[in-house]
C-alpha cells in the first residue's frame, strides 16, 4: 500500500499548476524513495521531470513500487477543494485502480476525502544523460517569468545568448524587436535574488517562447530558477522545491533557419 502525508497541500497544488498545461495526463511513479514523474508534452518537444523525495513528506510509506496514471485535469479539480494549509494524505492500495486523497484542516475540525479513478497510460521513459553544461544561469524565478512574459509579446521564439558579460534574451516579431540583458550581480542580501552565471563557453540558442512561459508557471514553487545550456542540447529549466525535491523542464532548441 502507498500512503503519503503532506503538511502543506498548497505545495502539491502549485506543482500541479506548474505541469497541467504541458501535460494532460501523467504517470506518477511511487517508490520508497519518493514520487517521480517524467513525461513529454503532446508535441514531444519538451519534457517534464519531477522528483518529490520521500523525506520531504511528513509521512511516507510505499510497500511496493506503484505507477499511477493520473488525469491531471481531474487531480487539479480535487486540489481546488482544499485550502493551501490543509494537511493532505494520498493513499492507494497495491494494484488499485483508484487513488484516495484526504484533506484535513490543521485544527482537525474538517475532514474531506476524494476518490479519483486512475488510468492506464503507456509510459515511455527517456534516459537523460549526465551533461556538463557550458553555462549555468541562476536568477530569481520571478525575473525569468517577467522576461518570458515581456518577450512573448514581441515574438514566438526567444534567443538566449550567454557570454561572460551576462545573458541576453532577445526576440523579434511583427512590431519590432526586444532585447533584455542581465549582468551578474552579487551585491544582494540573499543569494537567490542575484543573477549568477557559471560559464565555460559562450552559448546562443533559440527556444519557443510559449513553452518558456509554461515553465514559468512553476515560479511560485521556488524563488530561484536555474537555466542550464549547452550548444545543441535541450535547455534545462530547474526549480528546486524547498525540502521536497525539484521540477526540471527540458526544452529542445529550435532548428536554425537557413535563410
Amino acid at each position, binding site marked *: 500500500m502507498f500512503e503519503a502525508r503532506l503538511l502543506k497541500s498548497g505545495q502539491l497544488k502549485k506543482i500541479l499548476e506548474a505541469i497541467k498545461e504541458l501535460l494532460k495526463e501523467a504517470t506518477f511513479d511511487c517508490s520508497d524513495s519518493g514520487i517521480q514523474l517524467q513525461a513529454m508534452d503532446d508535441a514531444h518537444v519538451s519534457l517534464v521531470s519531477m522528483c518529490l523525495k520521500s523525506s520531504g513528506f511528513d509521512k511516507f510509506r510505499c510497500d511496493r513500487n506503484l505507477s499511477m496514471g493520473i488525469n491531471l485535469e481531474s487531480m487539479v479539480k480535487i486540489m481546488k477543494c482544499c485550502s493551501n494549509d490543509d494537511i493532505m494524505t494520498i493513499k492507494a492500495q497495491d494494484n488499485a485502480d483508484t487513488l484516495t486523497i484526504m484533506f484535513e484542516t490543521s485544527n482537525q475540525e474538517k475532514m474531506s476525502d476524494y476518490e479519483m479513478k486512475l488510468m492506464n497510460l503507456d509510459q515511455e521513459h*527517456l534516459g537523460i544523460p549526465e551533461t556538463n553544461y557550458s553555462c549555468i544561469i541562476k536568477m530569481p524565478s520571478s525575473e525569468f517569468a517577467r522576461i518570458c512574459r515581456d518577450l512573448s509579446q514581441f515574438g514566438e521564439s526567444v534567443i538566449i545568448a550567454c557570454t561572460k558579460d551576462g545573458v541576453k534574451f532577445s526576440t523579434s516579431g511583427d512590431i519590432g524587436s526586444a532585447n533584455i540583458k542581465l549582468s551578474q550581480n552579487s551585491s544582494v542580501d540573499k543569494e537567490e535574488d542575484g543573477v549568477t552565471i557559471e560559464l565555460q563557453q559562450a552559448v546562443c540558442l533559440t527556444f*519557443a517562447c*510559449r513553452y518558456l512561459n509554461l515553465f514559468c508557471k512553476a515560479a511560485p514553487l521556488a524563488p530561484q530558477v536555474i537555466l542550464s545550456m549547452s550548444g545543441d542540447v*535541450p535547455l534545462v529549466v530547474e526549480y528546486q522545491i524547498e525540502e521536497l525535491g525539484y521540477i526540471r523542464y527540458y526544452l529542445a*532548441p529550435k532548428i536554425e533557419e537557413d535563410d
Partner: protein
Amino acid sequence: MAPRSKKSELKDATGFRQTFDQNRFLILPDSLTNDQNIERKFVKLRHPQTSELAMFVFSEKDKKLAQMRSLPFDHRTIFKDNEVIPIDRIDFVTLIDPLFIFLPYFVKYSSMFSPLDQILTDEDFPELNNLLMKLSELSDLQQVANKKEVGDLILWQYNESKTLEWLSPKVEKVLQVLVSQQINVNPNAAISSTFKLSASSAQSSEEQYKRYACSIISEYLPFEIQKSLLIHLGLPEKVECNKRKADGNSLDVNKKVKHNSINYDEMPNKVEKIVAPKLTAKDKALKKAASGTKSISSFFKKN
C-alpha cells in the same frame, strides 16, 4: 419506375417483336427498325445513375444508342399469326443521348481540362474505352463541357451550369407530357389509371409535377447532378414526413396509405457525424509554438 415509363414508351414504339431462346419480347422504336440491313449490337455500358453495367443497343451506322429496360413478364403468351408464343420478359428499347452515359466520366475529371480519351476511360472496364470514344462522336459534348484547343490538342472540362441548362428543357418536356396525360404524380399514393377522381381533388400542384419529371430525368443522372438539378429548378430538398402531415387535410382521399415510400436515392446522403477530438485554442497555439523545434526524444535515449 419501370411501369410508369412503359406508357410513354409504348406510344412511339411499334410492335416489332422478336423471340429469343429466353422468350424475350422486344419493343423497339421505328427509327431502329426502318433499315433492316444495318448491324446493331448489344453492348454493356455503365448506367449513369448506378454506375453498374447495363444493356444498351448501339448501331454504329445509324449513329444511335438505345437503352434496354426489361420487365419480367412471366407466364404470358402472345399471338403471332396462328402461333402462340410464350414470353418471359418484355424489353423496351428506347433511344438515349450518349451524353447521359458520359456525364459520370466528365464529373470525375471536372477539376481540370483534359483530352477526351483521358476523360472517357473506364479503369475497371478498359474494354469500354473504344466504345465510349466511338459514342462521343454521336453527340455534342459542348452541351455539358467547355472546349479548349491548345495546339493540336482538344481539351474538355465538365461545366455544371451548361449541363443544367441542357437538362432543364428535358424536365420541362417530361412535365408537359405528365400534365397532358394527367398522370398521377401524388407522392403519397398510387392511383389506378382507370380510377377517376373529381377534378378538384385530383389536381396536383405544379411543383409535384415538376418534381416527378425531375425524378424521371434523374434516373439517368449521377447523384451529385441530381442534387444540383433540384436546386437549379428551385425545388427544395424533400422532407417527406412533414409534407404529408402538413398537406394532410387536402389529401384526405389518400390518408390510408399503408406503405411509406422510401427514397433510396437519398440514402447515401446521410453521413455519420465524425466526432473530432477536442482541441482547445490553447492546444492549437502550443502545437504551433512547437513547430520548428526538434523532438526532445532525439536527444534522450529511450529506456
